[in-house]
């Protein structure tokens, strides 16, 4: 008997759904928006700004943020990302820009999708509650001719959910720990903001 496939999350953007399919294809486990990192507080210590990376890849201990916005609209996200890296230096995060995603689709011969998925004026992200216990994406068995899965990482824990301690992202724990310690610095952040911007050209 096989375990039921976890329900697919409701992706905020079609590009996220496409990336999830790509990760599934290459047997890379993922969780969709499992963690929210506070990055700005007001003088009362209340969180006034946070950042929820789109994906967490537990086997790689890596967050992935996918943005298909036009470059001029990416600045706000770049600022948030820079702030996240300042506050949580141990958190590994990769930002996929529109050009990165375009190149990925080009590599897979899926360029026709580019216009559908990228270059929009903004990701239509409705207000949503972050589901901290949302199941990870499926990690089905490798479809190979002669597979020896015993030694593969995915085989060791193929059906774990993000709530499992073994897969709990470091960032979630560290984020909670850091919140108190970073409160003073964050007041400055909330007032002045981090204005340094990573303005990579988007050809």
């Amino acid at each position, binding site marked *: 008997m096989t375990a039921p496939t976890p329900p697919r999350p409701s992706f905020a953007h079609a590009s996220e759904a496409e990336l999830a399919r790509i990760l599934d294809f290459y*047997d890379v486990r993922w969780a969709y928006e499992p963690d929210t990192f506070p990055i700005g507080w007001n003088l009362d210590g209340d969180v006034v700004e946070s950042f929820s990376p789109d994906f967490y890849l537990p086997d790689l201990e890596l967050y992935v943020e996918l943005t298909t916005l036009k470059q001029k609209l990416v600045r706000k996200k770049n600022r948030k990302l820079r702030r996240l890296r300042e506050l949580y230096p141990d958190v590994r995060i990769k930002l996929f820009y529109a050009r990165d995603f375009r190149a*990925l689709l080009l590599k897979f011969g899926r360029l026709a999708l580019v216009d559908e998925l990228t270059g929009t004026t903004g990701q239509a992200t409705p207000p949503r509650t972050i589901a901290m216990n949302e199941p990870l994406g499926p990690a089905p068995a490798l479809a190979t001719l002669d597979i020896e899965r*015993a030694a593969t990482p995915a085989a060791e824990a193929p059906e774990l959910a993000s709530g499992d301690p073994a897969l709990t992202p470091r960032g979630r724990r560290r984020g909670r720990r850091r919140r108190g310690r970073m409160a003073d610095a964050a007041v400055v952040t909330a007032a002045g903001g981090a204005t340094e911007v990573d303005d990579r050209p988007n050809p």
Partner: protein
Amino acid sequence: MTRTADLQGDIGDILLTEEEIAAKVAELGRRIAADYAGRSLTLVSVLKGSLPFMADLMRQIPLPLRIDLMEVSSYGGAATESSGLVRILKDLSASIADEDVLLVEDIIDTGLTLNYLVRYLRGKNPASLRICTLLDKPARRLVDIPVDYVGFEIPDQFVVGYGLDYGEQYRNLRFVGVLRPEVYTPAD
């Protein structure tokens, strides 16, 4: 797709000349031969893009060695949803258990395919497993995997030639070049 009949005409800039590639392959061969001196080696190449590199590299390694070839399916979006997973289209033809294995790749960008292959090959219990790539595009890296031998680190551009293709074309170019965007950009 607006590919022309003139393959070389579709290339914007030549990134690596035939001579530069040959010199680098010879250099890689010397390094690999030194590192594996006194041992035998199994080179595993991934079809189809790595073929020219594999063919040239193995002739630059004066050690007892054998070669093997693998082919894996590539992501195709909706067309692959029925299977949903990368598949081994051609598996190894012999065991690599207790062998020193060098995985030979043409290019590493996201690292997704390499990550899958490394996990798969480690499951075959080789004595050692190292990775050699002619081209490395680190700007595209999603999965970080240590690469032992890198020929060239290249910029974030779509390159073809010397085994690398776009739509199964351009593999037979002797150099590595940047494909003109108009070739893969749909005409309005």
